[in-house]
């Protein structure tokens, strides 16, 4: 097996940083060992596509373009009127979906390794993100489960509020290191520890 490597391995190796108060009030890390499948349908095939996909996922596709759906451990996000992301830990998910969705009704594309999944955890996570994304993250406006396609450092990405104080940012892999730098820099005053979540690469 070829050894997988992280886009931010070098940055993670440098560890955390004490904040202005000498504490580390945040946890910044990377989620590893996950897979990303992008699904798409054509103008007139939405219904057949939804049926085929739902059969594999075990639930209907979400209608909202801001609230993620959940199918067991899988997270489903509608990223465009005709496109969805399935974020999963299941290695076989892409193949199962590809087998279930005929090319005549839609497409299944394995985009694993195309994104670096950065995690920002802690009570100050919202304050850090306020320095980076022009999105209202107040709990009343951005509840747990919401996601938004936005940008850090003028580069597009997807932000998902995975839990109360846990936000996950899906950065393009080639921008992963620079996005990490921007997040770590914004977190400097609060202090942070680093961590790796999921299967070590």
């Amino acid at each position, binding site marked *: 097996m070829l050894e997988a490597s992280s*886009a931010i391995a070098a940055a993670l190796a440098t560890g955390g940083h004490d904040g202005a108060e000498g504490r580390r009030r945040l946890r910044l890390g990377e989620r590893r060992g996950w897979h990303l499948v992008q699904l798409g349908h054509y103008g007139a095939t939405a219904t057949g596509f939804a049926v085929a996909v739902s059969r594999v996922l075990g639930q209907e596709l979400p209608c909202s373009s801001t609230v993620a759906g959940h199918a067991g451990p899988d997270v489903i996000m509608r990223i465009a009127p005709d496109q969805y992301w399935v974020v999963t830990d299941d290695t076989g998910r892409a193949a199962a979906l590809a087998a279930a969705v005929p090319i005549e009704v839609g497409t299944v594309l394995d985009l694993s390794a195309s994104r670096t999944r950065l995690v920002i955890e802690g009570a100050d996570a919202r304050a850090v993100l306020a*320095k980076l994304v022009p999105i209202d993250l107040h709990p009343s406006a951005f509840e747990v489960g919401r996601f938004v396609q936005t940008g850090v450092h003028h580069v597009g990405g997807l932000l998902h509020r995975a839990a109360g104080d846990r936000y996950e940012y899906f950065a393009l892999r080639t921008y992963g290191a620079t996005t990490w730098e921007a997040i770590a820099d914004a977190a400097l005053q609060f202090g942070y520890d680093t961590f790796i979540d999921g299967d070590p690469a």
Partner: protein
Amino acid sequence: MTVPARLPTGGRIDRARPLSFVFDHRRLHGCAGDTVASALLANGVQLIGRSFKYHRPRGFLAAGVEEPNGLLTIGEGARCTPNVPATTTELREGLFCRRQNGWPSVDFDVMALTSWLAPFFGAGFYYKTFMGPRRGSWMMYEPFIRRAAGLGEATHLPDPDRYETRHAFADVLVIGAGPTGLAAARAAGRAGCRVTLVEQDFELGGSLLSAPAGSSDADLLATLEADVAALANVEVLRRTTALGVYDGNTVVLVERHDHARPDPAKGEAREVIVTLRAGTIIHATGAIERSMLFGDNDRPGVMLAGAVRTYLNRYAVAVGQTAVIATNNDSAWCAALDLAATGAHVTLLDERAGAGAGLGEAARRAGVDVRYEVRLRRALGGRSVRGVEYARRDGAPETLACDVVGISGGWAPTLHLTSHTGPKPVFDTALDAFRPGPFATGHYGAGAMMGTRSLQESLDEGHAVGAAAARHVGATGAVGAGPACAGEWPTGHAPSPPERSPGTGKAFIDFQNDVTTKDVALAHEEGYHSVEHLKRFTTLGMGTDQGKTANVDAAKVMASLRGIEMAVAGTTTYRPPYTPVSVGALAGRSVGTHFRATRLTPMHDWHLANGAVMIQAGPWLRPWYYGWAGKTVGAAYVEEMKLVRSGVGMSDVSSLGKIDIRGPDAAIFLDRVYVNAFAKLPAGKARYGVMLNDDATVLDDGTTARFDEHTYFMTTTTAQAGEVMSWLEFLLQVAWPELRVQVASVTDRWAGMSVAGPRARQALQLAFPGVDLSNESLPYMGVREFMFQGTTVRLLRLSFSGELAYEVYVPADVGTAMWSRILAEAAPLGIRPYGLESLASLRIEKGHVAGLELDHRNTLEDLGLGKMASKSKAYIGRELATRANLRRPGRWSLVGLELLEPTKKLRGGSILFNRHEALEGHGRGYITSVTWSTEHQKLIALGLFEGGLAHEGEEIVCAYPLRNEIVRARIVSPMFIDPTGERVHA
């Protein structure tokens, strides 16, 4: 004056927290709660600087952001900031400040002599005097004039501080935390909104801060603060100024953190620019007191009456013991009464025949000497005021000795922010001031900024707009009753006269720019009648204060001179920022390595660890060359080229744009996008393609591979990857939504590496044992996808270098592992990595066009690709390609160039001329790319030349004006090597 003026009691300062600071190398002391201005006044410092043009001695005029005179240089070394208003600078321990614009000192300023030459330095003096004797003479004078003029001097050292930006959101934004703003925030907060209340001061309260301790106003402030603090949904931002209001209820704020001594090493920002998006905006910005126009009204010790009261009651500083208060309205009476209460001798000169109810009696009880229907003519004194000259209308001048003069010419609503989105202020004759123009839906104004003078009315208005704003954003909570005040402010007033009072001495309108009533008259005489022309002719209203105390008076003087109404005269356009903002704050963290995002290939860390010298290429950081090949790029790239031409090398091509195209109609889609046919491209094959813009210029080129019936893998140039992706999405969503195709960028999904050279097949055979890579199995332009050690591998037999070559693609996370494996397995063949410089040079030898030639101005024919265009199908750009200009003979077209003078250089960007013509103008083309040819042992180039290869064999001249170089070259075929393609098919 050096007499300490701090009162033993009173004020809002914290005497238990003394602070020391350095002023002009003297250590002085103040208290927490002081501004630098109040601390200096408390230490008896009255002369605060020299004026901009005439170097006249100046003292503080105001106590807030409107201060025109009291500008200091704050800080030292790299942290030195010039022209900072001392009136808004919070005192902190160890603060270093100094006065400006005086030599050898502000106290004894030689340049004050210019004041004697003032008759020659009227408005427009520089423009009239320094234009001659020749055209361009201004450039000679300018450095000297600039050295003589100006106030403080900025440091040339790098700013060591950290600045940030952040985003914020609110249902209701309240700008200004005076009584009106507090009442508005209180109401909106009680209704359940998310409220943000911003206040530029370090204390809330606005005008209430100027009330005596223990007064009903002070009690009201405490109550309002407590009410607001009790609301968890109201965020209060002190030391935060609203700089500008923009479309979409977007307001830019600046937060200042100097008071907390931010440490950049700890990530603490000195200033933060906040982009706040609000559901609705309430303007509660108050009003600014106006000056009065009389002779030598700029003497230190002449200050706004409101400022006298603020220094007295908020900072416990008695700015004088013998005071003259001159006014045309009731508000200044408060200053007179409060001063008298401290034991000062106060004379009040009121231009009116009488004052508001009860004021006369209160003045009598306080011992204030009141004189009605009198007007100031002149201030007496030099470096501090010593008295005033005043007179009744048509009466003889009389003098009064004093050590401070408080003046009040009325109040001008602070409406600047309301103008930022367009509405022009409207002159209100009854108010004798400009009011805000019509508000946009969802914007509100209340209190003094709307011209309201009564405290209770301001509170009522604040409460009402707070409730209305809450309703506007859908909040339905009960707001309850509004706040009530126990005492009321005197509100009577009379219009200020539009002319200066009789008497001698300069009557300044704009103190900061040394603009007098005489300058306005001169502007009028010379035809600069409109307020906009007046501003530019005299510089009135410019500078750090932007004429906050000057604009209304200036407009009135000009309107009077023109004999028109103020409503016709109007006012200048207020633009952001409301107060000065540092460049550092605007830049935020977009400095140094954070200036822009950097894109790294999956093998980046390997490159760094293995001697690569990196280079920025657009957003990408790519290996430029490797240390194994040489210490300089000039030496290294030639060695790397030799390696590829003679053995095998590997280059990181992950930056190439990669697009997944799939669906039943993918072939049709590609057939329309590319000029050449793709519909019949068989699975397992790739094809070079070119796509055009709508206007038939070349958009991009690249190779698209077909892996199965419905799945294509397109590669684009690195530079055009984003544009091509957007173009394809646009076509599918707008032009051809009926096509059953999905596209997705997979640039980040796949790591790419080009293995090139005569031994490339052998190298990959070693890396992928068991995979048949024979010419028969995988011919030129053949592609294959297979699993290797659990990983999908895409192998495309393509060549950018002109050699036998393959592109290997694997998922990005195993890119480094695959890269390392190929290098390790093929090591016996001498494989080594090569960088971007040699990659680009190899393609020049082969004559492949790239980003430098694909500049959206060239057609297929210009680039020698005309034969690729299909004649049997439609494609984007086909119709417009028939335009006459695009078919015109003599268009600049692709050529190869070889150097004819070996001792000289060919340079990219050189302008091309025929051999015997004059080297003038734009020439007949230019060089796009240059390299040393290892095959030909000479410099070669690609370029665009008028008529292109019709001139093959001709000698031309390449001019490089930047270095004044001229060199001869010959036009040749752009394909310098292997024109029959034997190598790529090997």
